[in-house]
């Protein structure tokens, strides 16, 4: 009997292993922070002081927690898109570009029609954001499904195209008229009408986008596990040949997975404009507008084990980490390069932990299969279901 079988043969140990696995991203984050602590020590900063400042900055006050939630909104939305894409076995690295296109389209509409009731414009803008992101995500989907173009490459390239379009639009047709006349020519649009701003939930910057994102997370869960479309997307993700044999249009569902994924990122872009900045602004880079949410959302989804509901707290935790890290830099006055390194460490550790989590899960399934040999078929399938969940 192998070592792994010995370890998991005891039911209590097996349960512990399953719980340990589900907390793997949190352990990974702690491990990353521990490594970060070594950097802090090298910089003559006390890690306990620094991490206290991080926690304080992220969750230490009402306003800090609100800031964390504001940061979590785009992470959650992009994360939800990542969950859908992942379940369809496609990888969407184009969140940044999809956010940009969604934001551009919704901002353009918001600036073009200034006399609509707020609720109507917000609804239209959300649809525009969704549409923009969906188109930008759907295109790589079509390329993947019908021309076998690697979607990782195409989505990344679409990011680069979106940035150039954004820079052209914000410095050209959509530039703030004030900036167009000023020497500074900052690449930003005019401000949206007051009525078009997403309502705030409390007297902080937290806006209604949080509630929308949480409702959408539940909807994504229902979509993936309680609807035919979700079943088909997952079937395509699990085994394309089997799905095809079962009569599912594989190509269509690959496109749909990326299209839906892009739609969520597009909505995230819209919310950054209508909920946070009230105008679109950049420093010429994608990050200048998105704050890296297009990439960090993927990490948040991995943090949430690619499950839409777990991605909710995962986004809040990861958002808190980002907000808290900036606060830590302000309080402890460490170089910002450390904050970048810390974020990078968390990403590397969390992504790596996903590998270990899956490996451990595979071992458990293999063990149950081997244990089930000789049992009646009903019992075997129940055992497998338990492990896979």
């Amino acid at each position: 009997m192998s070592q792994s079988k010995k370890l998991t043969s005891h039911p209590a140990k097996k349960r512990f292993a399953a719980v340990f696995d589900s907390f793997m991203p949190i352990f990974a984050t702690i491990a990353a922070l521990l490594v970060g602590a070594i950097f802090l020590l090298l910089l003559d900063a006390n890690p306990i002081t620094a991490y206290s400042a991080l926690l304080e900055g992220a969750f230490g006050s009402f306003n800090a927690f609100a800031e964390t939630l504001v940061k979590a909104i785009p992470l959650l939305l992009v994360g939800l898109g990542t969950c859908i894409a992942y379940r369809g076995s496609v990888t969407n690295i184009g969140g940044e570009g999809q956010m940009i296109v969604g934001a551009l389209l919704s901002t353009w509409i918001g600036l073009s029609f200034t006399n609509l009731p707020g609720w109507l414009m917000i609804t239209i803008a959300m649809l525009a954001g969704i549409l923009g992101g969906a188109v930008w995500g759907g295109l790589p989907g079509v390329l993947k499904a019908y021309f076998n173009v690697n979607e990782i490459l195409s989505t990344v390239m679409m990011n680069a195209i979106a940035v150039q379009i954004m820079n052209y639009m914000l410095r050209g047709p959509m530039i703030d008229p004030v900036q167009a006349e000023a020497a500074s020519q900052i690449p930003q649009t005019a401000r949206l009408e007051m009525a078009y701003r997403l309502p705030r939930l409390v007297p902080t910057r937290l806006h209604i986008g949080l509630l929308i994102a949480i409702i959408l997370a539940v909807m994504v869960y229902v979509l993936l596990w309680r609807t035919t479309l979700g079943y088909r997307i997952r079937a395509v993700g699990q085994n394309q040949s089997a799905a095809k044999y079962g009569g599912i249009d594989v190509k269509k569902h690959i496109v749909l997975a990326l299209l839906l994924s892009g739609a969520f990122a597009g909505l995230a872009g819209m919310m950054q404009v209508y909920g946070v900045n009230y105008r679109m602004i950049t420093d010429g880079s994608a990050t200048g507008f998105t704050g890296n949410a297009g990439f960090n959302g993927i990490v948040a989804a991995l943090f949430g084990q690619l499950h839409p509901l777990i991605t909710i707290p995962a986004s809040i935790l990861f958002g808190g980490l980002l907000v808290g890290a900036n606060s830590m830099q302000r309080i402890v006055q460490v170089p910002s390069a450390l904050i970048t390194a810390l974020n990078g460490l968390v990403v590397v550790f969390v992504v790596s932990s996903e590998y270990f989590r899956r490996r451990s899960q595979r071992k458990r399934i293999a063990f149950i299969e081997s244990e089930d040999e000789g049992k009646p078929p009903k019992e075997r399938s129940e055992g497998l279901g338990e492990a896979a969940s």
Partner: protein
Amino acid sequence: MKNTIKLFSLLLITVLLVAGCTQAAPPVEEPEVSDQPLRVAIVTPSSMNDLAFSQSISDAMQALQKEMGEGKLEYVYSENMFVVDDAAAAIRSYAQQGFDIILAHGSQYGSSVQEIAPDFPNTVFAWGTTVDTFDMPNVHAYEAASDEGGFVNGVMAALLTETKVIGVVGPIETGDAKLYIDGFAAGVKSVDPEIDVRVTYIGSFSDVALAAEAATTHLSAGADVLTGSAQMVIGAIGKAKEAGAYWFGTQADQTSFAHDVVVASQVYHWEVLLREIFALRQSGVLGGETFAATLDNGGQVIKINPDLDLGQDVLDEAERVIQGIIDQTISIP
């Protein structure tokens, strides 16, 4: 699994032990009464040692601290705040912590200042580079007349080029970068309109590799003099150094990075403007003023590398142009 837990535990214990033995870094203190040192917070879009825009404000604060004494002036900073949203959070946080003056050192921070300043009427907000104070009583604006230094650099570049091709690497066509580059091109053309000034805006303030690429392209096209603005030019300076092409800098003194090729740098001395902002605060004026760093008021200085043999005629011409701009006998188109 056991090994993983052991590893985590070991790491945790090690770090906590070492942390316990370390003196705690002093956290930022809460604001005190008015006889306390002047407390300034700075938010910059790039790192404070970028040899460019952010470094210029860092150098200024260091100079002022030296001048006033550490006990009289304290400053903290948030660097690399290229995401406007993060910068806004930092600005608000500093205001809440009761800092006396907050320098939003990036023209992209205007919306944030406009949003936050009314909530903190006793805090001085200064942002640049711009001229817009939003008509708010606690917002100052500052800018650099970087076209002036750009013009001087351009004149020298035109006198030094042999191939008659000059390459320029810019970020995006905005702010003081655009002003500098336009001034530089005008300076070159004032000497010889036939010189080919090749301007490339790479579309990024941070992409060092792309700036290096742009410089390489200019060098391949025959450029023997290069210049550029913003923090990503480090990549371009590196290429100039490799090729032995002359480099003209702006924002901060870039000589230390490539001593053999940096001819001159237009260096911002924000301390000239900051002194005025500090003094105004003392007299109860919290905002509403616009400041400009010029060659005339010493807010910018052309620092020529003394170790390069440029020829006396080049130095004389540079001096003549600087003086002409100061006494307004030379106007920049």
